[in-house]
């Protein structure tokens, strides 16, 4: 599996979004989970909450750090990955699969233009590095 799948879109805060029709599945990137280390707690919004692009929608905590989660896209939360409450380590094990965080109904598809392609995200990691509260 590629560290940064080509079908996803990325933020400079190390979230990914996968467009599924009018919805987007959202998670954190391989780089983010690696920098955080063992994730031990995830705090997510409830279904029905409206999240806004670039705004915090939750928190992920590793043994040593607390990090805000920033929404790649605006929209209403329509699904939350409830099993992460009991098994937050899925964020480390499978950040693009079982470790997804929320699904939102996209309110403004134009916002997708703000997001990075996998190639651009990897370029961003090489040049800027990252800050995930490490």
């Amino acid at each position, binding site marked *: 599996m590629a560290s940064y799948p080509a079908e996803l879109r990325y933020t400079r805060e190390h979230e990914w979004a996968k467009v599924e029709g009018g919805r987007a599945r959202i998670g954190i990137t391989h780089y983010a989970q690696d920098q955080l280390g063992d994730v031990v707690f995830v705090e997510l919004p409830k279904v029905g909450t409206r999240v806004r692009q670039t705004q915090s929608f939750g928190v992920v905590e590793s*043994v*040593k750090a607390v990090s805000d989660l920033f929404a790649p896209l605006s929209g209403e939360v329509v699904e939350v990955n409830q099993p992460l409450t009991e098994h937050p*380590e899925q964020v480390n094990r499978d950040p693009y699969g079982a470790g997804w965080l929320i699904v939102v109904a996209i309110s403004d598809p134009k916002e997708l233009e703000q997001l990075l392609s996998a190639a651009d995200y990897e370029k961003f990691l090489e040049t800027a590095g990252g800050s995930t509260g490490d």
Partner: protein
Amino acid sequence: MAPSDTARLKRTPLHAAHVRLGARMIGFGGWDMPVQYAGIVEEHRTVRTAVGCFDVSHMGEFEFRGPDATRALQRLTTNDVPSLAVGQVQYSLLCYEDGGIVDDLTLYRLAHDDYMMTVNAANIDKDWAWVTGHVEGKVDARNASAETGLIAVQGPKAEGLVGRLTDVDVTAIGYYRFARGRVAGVPAIVSRTGYTGEDGFELYLPASSTEPVWDALLTEGKRDGVGPIGLGARDTLRLEMRYALYGNDIDQTTNPLEAGLGWVVKLPKGDFVGRPAIERVKAEGPIRRLVGFEMVDRAVARHGYRIVRDGAEVGHVTSGSYGPSVDRYIGMGYVTAALAAVGTEIDVEVRGRPQKARVATTPFYAPKVKK
């Protein structure tokens, strides 16, 4: 961290070894130290189930030698120094006149008039100034920190691993006792002490020969499932034991009695620095106490979070994390003395919201140290 900051950090004799092992390095108390290698939770489990090696060379070592060494240390530290036998180790404290804690330490009686004191890395300069300012009589004090390496080998397989590499009969060393010998051919103090709740050793070595011993431990220990362990797991391991960490749970503003360290304060021994202030606390009773707590709600308590009850602040969190071996969110903190009983319900304020917690029996983890 900016490169200029990293450059100013001090390095232990094992720094190059950590980099070779692919450790993630962080600044800690002025030192560039490994926070993790394979991952904090995995390293934590390695220590609980097999054996782990920690570089703790950043810690400080002071030597006190001379006919007045016992008397001087008796006045300087809170525990009873004359009761310490040659070959024995004592946990103790340095206190200020007002009862606040300068540092916590271990004291080794190397010979009748010869002691070694091990202090926290971040406190070496402060402690050295303090002890040299207070030592009286015929005592030769020496700061041996820079020339001393220190490796902790901790876990159920530690005795077997160290035993295979040394000419010392490690099975004969009791808890909080030490012996001198060679480990991997290098002269060492082999001390049955640690900061994890597991059986294990701390090996004091010449700084220049610390790396070959580290390499020998990791090579010989392969069949035991050995791993290098970073500061991250060192912190979760000690938290499960409710061991205080200086700068987090104890400092110059906390006194030993409220911190639950009254067992290393021997008031009947006579005068020592801080005694009158500590006697007053004892007479009046501490107004707050350091407790261990477990989260009832799902939330992680962190250093500095407020502890509240019925909306009023009753204390603060000093340490908190997920405890991998107890599979709970646990922490330590100061609460008003009336709320210190096990089972007392408290709230920890996490991002502005009160989350239920309960004062817990400690240690959280049942220790496996040698009796």
